[in-house]
């Protein structure tokens, strides 16, 4: 099933409001989906016999910077029987202050269980909270680390357990 047909199928099922844009230049082509419908869209693509995206290759979190003020999550799906790849994308507003609540994206880990660790990683390095995730803990960084290092404006903490983190700017 080609890209246009998938877009039509999704619009028929979820209405025009679901679609926030398409990016045909990307490899594989990407559909931008409204954030509250991402889990339902994924479930439809997973269960529909015509699309059958049974393999979640990759899940990436992206920070567009404090000026753009958005965070993105990109899902790369692959259908093994049809040999078709597809990207999905959601965009959420970014919390610019550390005291604000983390942006929320619905989890897809109940559909593809591989998303479990990918989402934990996105939470760890970018501070995107996946609602409904069974085990939202940090995965690569220590549990008591402060901040999310792949944010474009992230400041390193001064000391971690008595160790200077940024060794260029030290006073002793």
């Amino acid at each position: 099933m080609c890209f246009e047909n998938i877009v039509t199928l999704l619009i028929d099922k979820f209405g025009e409001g679901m679609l926030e844009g398409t990016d045909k230049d990307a490899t594989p082509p990407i559909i931008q989906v409204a954030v509250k419908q991402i889990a339902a869209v994924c479930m439809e693509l997973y269960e529909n016999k015509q699309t059958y995206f049974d393999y979640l290759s990759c899940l990436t979190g992206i920070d567009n910077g404090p000026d753009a003020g958005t965070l993105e999550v990109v899902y790369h799906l692959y259908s093994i029987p049809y040999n078709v790849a597809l990207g999905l994308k959601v965009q959420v507003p970014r919390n610019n202050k550390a005291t604000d609540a983390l942006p929320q994206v619905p989890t897809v880990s109940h559909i593809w269980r591989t998303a479990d660790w990918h989402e934990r990683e996105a939470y760890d390095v970018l501070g995107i909270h996946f609602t409904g995730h069974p085990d939202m803990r940090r995965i690569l960084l220590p549990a008591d680390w402060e901040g999310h290092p792949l944010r474009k404006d992230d400041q390193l903490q001064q000391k971690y357990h008595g160790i200077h983190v940024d060794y260029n700017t030290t006073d002793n």
Partner: protein
Amino acid sequence: MANPIQYQYEKENLHRSEPNKYQPEHLKPEEMLINIGPQHPSTHGVLRLEVVVDGEIVVDVVPHLGYLHRCFEKHAESMPYNQTIPYIDRMDYLAAMNSEHAYVMGVERMLGIEKDIPPRVEYIRVLVAELNRLASHFVSIGTYAMDIGAYTPFLWMMRDREHIQRLLEWICGARMLYNYIWIGGLFYDLPVGFEERCQEFIRYLKPKLIELNQLVIENKIFVERTANVGVLPLDLAINYAISGPMLRGSGLKLDFRKVDNYSVYPELEFDIPVGEGLMGTTGDCWDRTYVRVQECYESVKIIEQCLERLQSDLKRTREFDPRAHVPKKIRPKKQDFYVRAENPRGELGFFFRADGRSDIPFRCKARSSCFVNLSVIAEISKGGMVADLIAILGSIDIVLGEVDR
């Protein structure tokens, strides 16, 4: 002047570590919490496993990662595309050539120069990648046999891997971390006489592979330790996005070298071995090792075909310059790009977002095969013995450099 990187000793620091998911007071009376790692030989690096056991039966496994985290993605988005290649080597340090090949392929496709690469360059890339695949599988099989109690295969595999490392050292000067495949070309051409020496090595290796078959995978003790252990059903494997020999061990014939037809793989003849459950259930630890051993034979086939081409119509000439197509300026146009390739451990993917204005990627995510493959361990080791947990962990074949990135 005092050392700027100084550790201030405080007694309480000794008692701080990554908190466990399970707390002792929430366990059932018969359950016990044990900790394996991070310094443990059978974890193939620094991986900590928090294991809840009921006697000798594993109830749950919680892996704690990050001990080897070196901020690959942060590095990649703060330096130009070509300078990232040494960091790629250090991700999967047992298969650096394969990882470089995947990354370079992605950047070349983003630039639109993948058609300009001379065939000799592509053949050399495939040749070194397959040599590295052999070396990587040798380590994997050897250390796996050592995990479950056989010491000889490890030494034999390391002996054969040494030849490959010397060949690759001859090409580029490094034994493990090569920085050989460049965007648009290669560091150097093959040294004079390499093809003949490589053929000699293949002649030497073929009987050794038969020995490997007899020594490891047909060995009765090995079969008893691995058959019917850690069975990974195919539907679970796909749901967890398992790839590489682990997925093929579960019986699915999926190899991205065939599916995506990248590089010169469509011109080469090779088979895709899959697990058939010859000694037990399809998808057990034995099947995964069996697939790895069979893949060694396929890699030998590919190497032979590459050498044949490199000695006939793609012969070395005086005019040949492997750096002729290396771009002076690497600035892809604005796009999102996902590239994947078949590594010895499975699908290695790179997601790039180029903003079209700079030589530095806006975002570069590495989809690591070991990271994803390791996530299934809790699922397949529940209900087994603690000794089987070690056998399962070895059969997943993780490289912690790639898990933690």
